[in-house]
């Protein structure tokens, strides 16, 4: 069944970086886009403006995925745009340290934002998707998780958990025309990675960091009608790192 008219995509953490690129890619493919942000309103509005400049429709939706009632985020998106039939769980944080030095707050914060919030939003998103017999959930995971990265035990746990959750939820709802997939970015040029080692070229076969737009393109495909038979999978956008 093709994407219904007025279908809206909710992208969490879309004020900048990968989230903003995803929002723009989805808008270019005809989705109405709810650009969620926690604190960077200016960034979110800039994303909305960029989308509108390309004749798309978008709205900035404020809310911290950890604290906000998922119902409120969805209601705001539905009121301003349309029925939310795509959810991109992109909001994520890092709090890096060796395992023996990660305190409870840093563990909880990373698990809550990157995994638990994604679950709560997915659960809420499935309600209208089940009724519509159509939906797309894309979870932004990472090469870290399936792969080790010293100093990121909390992040790795959350991202690996996200991939596990993706597969099981995909199985549960596949026959309702709802696909659930993960995208696993490698080194991507964003604020979140600018303090990481500059010698990315040493570890990445493609000899460069990826661009946010390249992650956006992967999400656009998975959210499209062309990907209706793709579910429960993880698409790595990592220049060959995981191969």
């Amino acid at each position, binding site marked *: 069944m093709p994407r219904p008219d007025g279908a809206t995509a909710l992208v969490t953490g879309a004020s900048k970086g990968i989230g903003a690129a995803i929002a723009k890619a989805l808008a270019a493919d005809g989705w109405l886009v709810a650009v969620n942000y926690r604190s960077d309103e200016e960034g979110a509005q800039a994303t909305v403006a960029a989308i509108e400049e390309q004749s798309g429709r978008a709205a900035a939706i404020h809310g911290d995925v950890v604290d906000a009632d998922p119902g409120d985020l969805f209601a705001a998106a539905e009121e301003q745009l349309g029925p939310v039939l795509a959810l991109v769980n992109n909001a994520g944080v890092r709090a890096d340290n060796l395992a023996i030095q990660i305190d409870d707050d840093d563990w909880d914060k990373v698990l809550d934002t990157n995994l638990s919030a994604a679950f709560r939003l997915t659960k809420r998103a499935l*309600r209208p998707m*089940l*009724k519509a017999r159509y939906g797309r959930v894309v979870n932004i995971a990472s090469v870290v998780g399936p792969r080790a990265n010293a100093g990121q035990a909390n992040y790795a746990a959350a991202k690996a958990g996200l991939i596990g959750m993706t597969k099981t939820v995909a199985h*549960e*709802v596949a*026959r*309702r025309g709802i696909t659930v997939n993960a995208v696993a970015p490698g080194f991507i040029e964003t604020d979140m990675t600018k303090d990481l080692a500059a010698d990315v070229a040493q570890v990445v076969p493609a000899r460069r960091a990826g661009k946010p737009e390249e992650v956006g393109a992967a999400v656009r495909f998975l959210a499209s009608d062309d990907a209706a038979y793709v579910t429960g999978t993880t698409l790595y956008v990592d220049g060959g790192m995981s191969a």
Partner: protein
Amino acid sequence: MATAVTPEAVEKVVFDALPQFGAEPSEITREATFEDLDVDSLDLAELSQIIEDEFGVQLKGDDVGKIKTVGDAIDLVVSRAG
């Protein structure tokens, strides 16, 4: 505004909803088992959402796991409405 919970009202909502999950309308009775109607756990989870939207009565996963027949589901909703 939630619809008043009466056995008749719940029966109507449940009987009307079941065909969308593939149940054969002529086979839907209070005594019919969900298994016979080919209605599985995902269908029942959706049915719970429909009931919650209509009557404001929330059915938890554990509740739904115990019901076997259409009558069980109707009785459960009525009892949860208190």
